């Protein structure tokens, strides 16, 4: 089942905090997440990446602009475009199996047996089969992430949005998770929007990288990553990889304005 095409047209969004001037986060921001491709959205923390993701998933309403899935306008959240949040969002009181089965169980209560079979298959592929009756609290960081991806993919969403999913994992687990998702992606090619602030992760995973320009509140430069698939670690030593990295660093530093240290700067940006 190939993925869908997600498009955003001139989105605008500003946060109004009582007693302060409204903070403009997105301004005339348009982007396309092509079907069956792994699109990476890259940018420093606080450049509105998460806000954009929430709008695409339908959790936050934009002030202006609209979101199109396969050409049709979409507003409400739905199983056609699911999101893996930056912080773990497995419900702690449900076992891993129940977490994964939640989607099918609420949408098609009748098809219990079929959903269970699909869940078992996914959990086996994700190496979580013998953890299915455990609670999320008993899992390691990497295992929780794999469970969340399974929780989303069982619903066969047209688009999968991942908001810095591997941030906070130690580097070793992070690298193994990147390899993991590449394997999953290269098997069924679900349309993926992967958000990150790590340059190496972006290039290693992406077919195309969209760079968020924090000053303008929209996507600035776009770089095609024509590295061959299936991708392996050795690719990071190739000349083409270094070339792309050079361009990416240049873009990042170009977007980067001088470090303003306004006293109220919030360490945890939007």
């Amino acid at each position, binding site marked *: 089942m190939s993925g869908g095409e997600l498009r955003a047209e001139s989105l605008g969004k500003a946060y109004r905090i009582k007693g302060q001037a409204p903070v403009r986060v997105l301004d005339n921001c348009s982007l396309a997440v092509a079907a069956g491709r792994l699109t990476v959205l890259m940018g420093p923390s606080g450049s509105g990446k998460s806000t954009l993701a929430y709008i695409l998933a339908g959790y936050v*309403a934009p002030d202006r602009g609209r979101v199109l899935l396969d050409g049709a306008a979409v507003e409400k959240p739905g199983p056609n475009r699911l999101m893996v949040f930056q912080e773990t969002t497995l419900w702690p009181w449900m076992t891993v199996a129940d977490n994964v089965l939640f989607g099918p169980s609420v949408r098609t209560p009748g098809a219990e047996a079929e959903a269970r079979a699909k869940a078992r298959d996914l959990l086996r592929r994700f190496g979580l089969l013998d953890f299915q009756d455990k609670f999320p609290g008993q899992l390691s960081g990497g295992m929780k992430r794999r469970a969340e991806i399974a929780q989303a993919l069982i619903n066969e969403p047209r688009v999968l949005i991942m908001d810095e999913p591997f941030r906070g994992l130690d580097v070793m687990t992070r690298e193994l998770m990147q390899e993991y998702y590449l394997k999953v992606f290269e098997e069924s090619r679900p349309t993926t929007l992967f958000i990150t602030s790590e340059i190496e992760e972006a290039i290693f995973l992406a077919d195309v990288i969209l760079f968020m320009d924090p000053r303008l509140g929209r996507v600035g430069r776009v770089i095609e990553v024509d590295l061959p698939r299936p991708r392996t670690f050795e690719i990071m030593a190739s000349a083409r990889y270094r070339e792309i990295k050079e361009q990416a660093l240049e873009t990042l530093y170009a977007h980067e304005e001088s470090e303003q240290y306004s006293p109220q700067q*919030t360490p945890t940006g939007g």
Partner: protein
Amino acid sequence: MALRGGGGQSSMLSAIVNRRVGLMVFGFAAAFVLWYASVNWLPFPAFRRLPDPAGVLQEWLSRDPAYGISVFTADYYVHILYSTYRATTAFALAVVLGVPLGIMMGWKKTVREYSDALLTLLRPIPPLAWVPLAILLFPGTEPAVIFVVFLVAFYATTLNTWVGVRAIDVAYFRAALCLGARPVDVLRDVIIPGAMPSIFTGLQIAMGAAWFSLVAGEMIAARYGLGYVIWEAYNLIQYPTIVIGMVTLGFVGYVCSALIRVAGDRLMRWHQKNIGAVRG
């Protein structure tokens, strides 16, 4: 919250504020009407025995109250002062003893092991169960009441201070030691400031608990104070005064806790800014 009705993000901020004030006023009015209706119109004798809001307000604000207690009578403020004196004295004692003990428990293993056992042994006994013994042991009712109130505040202060010290990130201790700090420096520059937020949480809980148990002491053993006023008003069938006593107790108790919160915020400016920055 996706589930909650009303209060859309885009509506103007002042509209939200007006709505909230409006609903609050509506809430209080509804409560008043409900109280008034149930006392005066409902056919149940139980409700009829209760004082109605109009009677209470009339008594509370009248220059010459039927039962001698109103905003304009001196007695009213004498009782408030007595209660406040007892609560704050006991609270001060609890702070003077509880905070240092809590800090020592957090800092020195030996102190912790001795006092933890004793606290765990005595803690299940509800503080108000000490009232009879306190009256028998102490030479008058005043110290007995203050002792019981002290006990309640002492538990809350000590435990929260201890929790506060234990919650300090070990990195701060190590950073200080690296820089050459001696134990006394660690106490002054890491333990006390680090535990401060939790100490103030404890102080607020202690003040609330102090007022809770003060009432019992005053109802059972005292000659003055709001607890005494309530119990006496009941005995002398002066029902409106009961409610006046109750509401005043609630209000004065609330003011004392609020004062502690304000003191805490001023003392810990870094904590305030810290929270502000993260949430901003």
